[in-house]
């Protein structure tokens, strides 16, 4: 049995040793920086884990998950003793972890629904305009891409001034208004939206390259077939760049599901939801909530819960990303199309009496 195992190991080493050697640098970093944190995270999510005091660690099963997924109300327990309300009964309060997770997920998802299509179709539109090589197109191409090379914190700082709530803010002084851009939910999201548009440069480059690769012959054929501009877009251009579109769609979607920097710089997660104090600020995204837990709470015994939130959110984003694999799969029809064409051709021949 042992010799069989040895033989097997020797066989694998012989067959894969060079490949393993070449892969080693990647494998080591992959294991260290992905596998280990990932396994640790999953494991940690089943524990009460205090980074300030690792001896204060014990197994809690799925409690961390149910705590923020299914527990809207919790008792107040201080020093092991339940806090009593005015009626003498244990005081029950809203579980902010529950509300923070679900509402930040909702805000993140709703924003992604708006920003993702815009972040794809706006650069696509610009790329198709520049494909016509207008005068100065090289300059425009650079101008479209340049904003995306600046750090969010730098452009965000400029936005804070431009959209300052006071009348001294650039926009307010220009319009003579006193709009609280960053203090009301819709306008705050609007400013975040505008700042996000600074990042369309990457999609623009990908889509512009894709457009260049659509064979000119297809456009000529479609012209002969009498296609108008819209039909050319639908039947030639979009199918011709479907892989680029798919890439842009999913990278943009994943990027905006992880939205954090823009909100941090512009709104600090606010404004508050005045009608529902248990909910997070209306520009809190899931990553913002996780970050709040990690650094803002001043508590270090929440690593289990934070890990659980990360795992669940990772699964959600991973699920969305895996859609791409499904949508991009090669539709293998075997020789179905050939058979169909053969049948059509023979039927036509028969009809013509040949």
């Amino acid at each position: 049995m042992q010799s069989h195992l040895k033989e097997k190991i020797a066989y694998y080493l012989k067959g894969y040793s060079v490949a393993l050697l070449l892969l080693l640098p990647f494998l080591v970093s992959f294991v260290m920086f992905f596998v280990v944190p990932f396994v640790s995270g999953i494991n940690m999510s089943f524990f009460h884990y205090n980074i300030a005091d690792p001896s204060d660690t014990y197994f809690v099963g799925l409690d961390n998950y149910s705590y923020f997924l299914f527990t809207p109300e919790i008792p107040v327990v201080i020093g092991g003793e339940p806090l009593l309300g005015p009626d003498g009964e244990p005081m029950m309060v809203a579980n902010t972890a529950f509300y923070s997770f679900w509402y930040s997920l909702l805000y993140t998802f709703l924003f992604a629904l708006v920003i993702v299509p815009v972040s794809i179709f706006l650069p696509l539109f610009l790329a198709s305009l520049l494909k016509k090589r207008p005068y100065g197109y090289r300059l425009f191409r650079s101008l479209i891409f340049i904003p995306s090379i600046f750090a969010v914190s730098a452009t965000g700082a400029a936005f804070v001034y431009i959209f300052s709530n006071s009348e001294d803010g650039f926009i307010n002084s220009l319009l003579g208004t006193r709009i609280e851009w960053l203090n009301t939910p819709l306008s705050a999201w609007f400013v975040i939206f505008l700042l996000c548009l600074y990042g369309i440069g990457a999609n623009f480059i990908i889509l512009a390259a894709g457009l260049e690769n659509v064979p000119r012959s297809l456009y000529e054929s479609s012209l002969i077939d009498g296609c108008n501009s819209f039909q050319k877009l639908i039947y030639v251009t979009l199918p011709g760049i479907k892989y680029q579109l798919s890439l842009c769609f999913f990278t943009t979607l994943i990027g905006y599901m992880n939205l954090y920097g823009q909100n941090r710089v512009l709104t600090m997660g606010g404004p508050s939801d005045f009608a529902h104090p248990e909910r997070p600020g209306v520009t809190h995204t899931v990553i913002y909530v996780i970050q709040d837990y990690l650094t803002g709470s001043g508590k270090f015994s929440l690593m289990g819960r934070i890990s659980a939130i990360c795992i669940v959110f990772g699964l959600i984003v991973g699920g969305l990303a895996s859609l791409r694999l499904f949508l991009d799969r090669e539709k293998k029809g075997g020789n179905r199309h050939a058979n169909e064409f053969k049948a059509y051709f023979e039927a036509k021949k028969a009809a013509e009496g040949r």
Partner: protein
Amino acid sequence: MKKMPFLLLSGAALALAACQPGGVPGLGSSSSHENHSEAPASSSEESDSDLTYDADGNPVFENVELDFWSISIGSDGLIQQDIVDKFNEEYAGKIHVNRAERRHDEFSSAIVNTVINDPEEAPDIVQGHGERLRELQSQGIYLPLEEAIELSRIDFSREDFYANILDDLYLQDDAGNEHLYGFPLDVHSNVIIARKDIIEKNGFEVPTNFEEFIAVCQGLADMAYEGKYQYRPTAQTNPDLEWLTAPSGTELFPWFMSIEALDDALSYAITGPVQNGTKMVDDRGLPAWNTQETIDYFEQLRTYMYPTGGKRPIIKTAAAYDFISDFYQGNYIFCSTGPWNLQGYKTIFDSAIGLGDGGFAEGVAIIPLSNLFAMDETSPTASSIVGTSHAFSLTRTVESDTKKAACMVFADYMSRQYVDWIKGGHLPMRKAAMEDEALLNDPFYLEVGQYLGKQENFTLGGITEYYSEVYGLEMNQGLNEVWHQTFNTQTQGKSIADIVDEQYRNSISIIASYQ
């Protein structure tokens, strides 16, 4: 065969997991805490101590390197670096302090992460905020200081410091024993700066209590609306420094608040209720500010922004901390600012007002917060100022007696450099400082320092391990959020009582959620 890569990966993952500091919980984790939480040696005379003393009984230091983290990162950080440099010169060959700055909002997480996960890189001594000491002490990050003080043989007596602050630096350990966890350095809070020249030109006096303060604000706002308000913009826009008269109908908001500035929150959201008799925390460290006094105070503030009965509004709020140019122009009369800014404002104002070296003194009054928000000036809490305090603490990674002693020598030295340190806007915690001619005759003290408030009036508000949740300064919750909603146009339909109750329950919710 296909399982081979997976097995390799899993094996490597588990091996690495077992190697990482602290391990993966549940996968054979080991507690580094146990190594660090051992009781420190009780006496320097124990044979295993690495600390020796000379014939005079003074500890002997030879090239001791100390890593020091400080949260003083602004202009006071520069001042502190100078003091540290001076210390390094004086103790050359004995103790050398390497100072590093940490931002206030990352300080707690940075120190916990370093002490736990990278103890080799952890600082030996830190300068944090005394009012937040409990948060880290309750998690076992800091060591009690008594043993280190004894080892260092510095002259430390509880009576040498202001008890109202020092007492809050004594905290209970897990066994219920009280220990000193912060070596006191200073106490500070915002002050109000006022355009003294404009106030006096319009026939008022610089206010010293709430009643006078509101009367001056309302008087100036009325005068502006009636076209009688006289003001003097600075030399940039008014080279001859002429006194101008505002046209009638001018809306002047004399009292400016930076609604998102933490220091303004400490003044208006915390000091205000405390001066009116509200206690911040109860015996369990939970919020206790949901009182009628708090409601009355914020209701009163709201009427100054949304007045009734034909009165003019006197408060203006803005998110950003950007009042200074309007202050120069005479558009705002009263603004709250951190005392560490005063040195810079003085320099600018001296030249901007166009009067040379006396410009700041002629144009600006510095008003400490005592009595300024108390509706009843005779109440025992009327003069209270809720401030913050800098204090030195030892991290639990310091195991060497020599280092412990060196840290205390350094802390002791720093606490005696008050003539320099006050220029950062920080009032000394040593009582002796207030009798020291060097300080009392210092030009900065005479012009600025003496107006920052009296140390006896300061309080840290109430020590609690739930500081973030109770005060809500960083996270827009608690009293900070009550203050915001008092003025927010979107919450005008809500009564202050409802806002206070909601935010109180929210604070409790967050405390409970973070358990």
